[in-house]
């Protein structure tokens, strides 16, 4: 057991969950109080000892499922038909099996709901349909897709709903919710079963490597699948809140303000007129003026959305945030983000209402800079920090680096956030080298973690900068 536990802990560390020595020892202590046969009890106990951040629970669960996957209860309970379909290996076997009775059984079990029956069906269909071939290093997701698509999973909700005569309105919505939840729990049973078979085949460590789930902070923004994007959107508000708290804390410790004579004298009354406890004025917090310039062309749109979302969530940290979106033309979009307005609506409005396409809808940084200087030049003042997000891929058009140099001369700082790995800059049609000399800083920002770090630096740089000037 201890061997499995140490393997498990090191897998968690691999994923990026910080597990300290003390916590691992706690986990070992906890195991003594848990009946090992009870998998859920073990899961909750280990989670309580090892995971101290709710966002990490998903990754923990993924790893736990692999390491403590259910041992085969009755090995090959689906024994009779399984060898036939697995035996022919080509994966075409499913065609010969009549799926209709299984699906009918599934629909029956789902509408009851009968979870024991669902469990049995999950075991059966994985044996029949997944076509798991020993030794093939394919992730579990592939098999899951295979099973579900052959079962015709998309048609299930409609079949379930058909059993009810014409529910309408709210009742219908609630019923649909309920069925969706049941189908999801069936899917997770199937996923469990697949994982169990994979582990039996290839061993824990190997499966853990292929099913490893990245922490949400580390998912690549540019290539994130939809499910991950939804998860990221859910964490961005709490992330902004925490960042604001951390900034406030760092600022408090930065430097005390000037001596406050009034307060000091008043305080001295309690010590008989002795000035024993000097009081200081709170320093005025300098908040930077922000101009955001975001490339929202297809390749980097997701990244631009997250930058805008985080900057707006953080807007209390800045004196003003103005946002401009561009592809090959530029337009101001500040007004689309009023407080309380749904972010997705705003993004939708940008693509509908803002005139960000000037010519052909391919990024043209040179033209955009020209338009910005010409139409919105007054937005950039010596108090402004300009943040440009984009991959700097200019489709072989003129870069007009001198325009950015002009902006940089006026603005306090120009930062460039590039969602591409730094080693790809200046390859192909990337014109980063033309802009680099004008930028105060170039940042590779591919994950939420990097984005958060940048925003923190930005807000702090402003605070330290102005206090230094005042002195």
């Amino acid at each position: 057991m201890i061997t499995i536990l140490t393997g498990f802990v090191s897998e968690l560390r691999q994923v990026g969950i910080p597990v300290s020595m003390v916590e691992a020892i706690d986990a070992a202590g906890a195991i003594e109080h848990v009946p090992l046969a009870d998998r859920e009890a073990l899961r909750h106990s280990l989670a309580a000892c090892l995971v101290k951040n709710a966002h990490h629970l998903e990754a923990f669960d993924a790893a736990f499922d692999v390491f403590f996957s259910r041992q085969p209860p009755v090995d090959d309970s689906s024994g009779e038909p399984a060898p036939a379909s697995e035996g022919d290996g080509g994966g075409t076997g499913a065609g010969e099996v009549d799926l209709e009775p299984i699906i009918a059984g599934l629909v029956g079990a789902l509408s009851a709901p009968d979870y024991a029956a669902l469990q049995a069906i999950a075991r059966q269909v994985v044996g029949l349909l997944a076509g798991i071939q020993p030794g093939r290093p394919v992730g579990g997701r592939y098999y899951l897709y295979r099973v579900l698509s052959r079962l015709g999973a998309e048609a299930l909700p409609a079949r379930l709903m058909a059993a009810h005569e014409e529910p309408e309105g709210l009742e219908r919505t609630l019923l649909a919710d309920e069925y969706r939840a049941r189908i999801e729990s069936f899917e997770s049973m199937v996923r469990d079963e697949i994982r169990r078979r994979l582990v039996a085949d290839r061993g824990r460590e190997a499966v853990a490597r292929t099913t490893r789930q990245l922490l949400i902070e580390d998912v690549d923004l540019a290539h994130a699948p939809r499910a991950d994007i939804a998860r990221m959107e859910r964490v961005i508000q709490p992330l902004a809140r925490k960042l604001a708290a951390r900034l406030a804390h760092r600022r408090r410790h930065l430097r005390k303000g000037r001596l406050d004579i009034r307060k000091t004298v008043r305080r001295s009354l309690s010590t008989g007129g002795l000035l024993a406890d000097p009081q200081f004025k709170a320093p005025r917090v300098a908040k930077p003026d922000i101009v955001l310039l975001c490339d929202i062309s297809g390749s980097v749109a997701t990244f631009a959305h997250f930058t805008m979302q985080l900057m707006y969530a953080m807007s209390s940290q800045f004196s003003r945030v103005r946002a401009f979106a561009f592809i090959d033309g530029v337009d101001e979009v500040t007004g689309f983000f009023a407080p309380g307005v749904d972010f997705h609506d705003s993004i939708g409005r940008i693509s509908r209402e803002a005139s960000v396409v000037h010519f052909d809808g391919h990024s043209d940084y040179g033209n955009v800079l020209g338009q910005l200087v010409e139409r919105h030049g007054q937005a950039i003042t010596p108090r402004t920090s300009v943040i440009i997000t984009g991959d700097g891929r200019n489709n072989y058009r003129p870069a007009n680096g001198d325009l950015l140099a002009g902006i940089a001369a006026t603005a306090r700082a120009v930062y460039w956030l590039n969602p591409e790995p730094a080693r790809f800059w200046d390859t192909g049609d990337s014109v980063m080298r033309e802009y680099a000399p004008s930028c105060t800083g170039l940042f590779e920002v591919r994950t939420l973690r990097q984005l958060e770090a940048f925003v923190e630096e930005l807000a702090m740089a402003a605070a330290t900068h102005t206090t230094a000037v005042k002195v």
Partner: protein
Amino acid sequence: MSEFTSPGEVADALKRVNYLPDERISQVVFLAERLDKPVLVEGPAGVGKTELAKALAEIHGRRLIRLQCYEGLDESKALYEWNYRKQLLRLQADEGADWSTVEDDIFGESFLLERPLLEALRSPEPVVLLIDEVDRVEIETEALLLEVLADFQASIPELGTVRAVSRPLVVLTSNNTRDLSDALKRRCLFLHIGYPEVDREREILLTRVPELPQQLAEQIAGVVRHIRAQPLRKSPSVSESIDWARTLLALGIEEVNEGVTTDTLHVLLKYQADIDKVAADLLGPR
């Protein structure tokens, strides 16, 4: 004090005092008592974090000592303070007395003001110590808690180290507005309480609002799940769905439909933008 031998017993005891735990909650509580470790409870507002501590105090028949955290909380509010007015009076009462005798005197028991942490440590019978919303204190103040949490003791310069007379059961809650320090987290078991599943929410509603009809409870739980699935500024919490159930009862409503829901949404949701969005979604398809 009763000792539990399995998480199941914890769950049953909690149910007896009208707190419905899920498997995770009873398991972690059980473990915390076994390992003698504090529990850090985290989760959105209104899912019953504070209630859990209260229920634990009730099932053990222990006193609940609560330390409500806020920004600016310090030693003198959390641990102890010398009653300096009383000390001044004592000094004035016999001026001219020898300093060494007075010194021993004014730093004695009768001049000490106990604050929640010290009170919990020195209580002769075991208590439940609830440190509420620990994320509100500054990181420096967190350090104050470390000694108490790890060794159940506190150091007071004039008195020396005060050890716990009896082991308190410690529950910390956090709304996760900032990251707690690793040192603090390491000393605690972590329990995340999220929104309950539909079935559990229905049971909670029935326990908390006993006169609620079964059918209505089911519908309420369903509607609340539907609303929580949407991206909102603030999802309805359990306490808000209980409020909603009470509202519907008071209005004499026996069945939930779109009209009733949209009319009473303001009980569930606290932002106008959220209310508009959900109302549009409910009335939308027609």
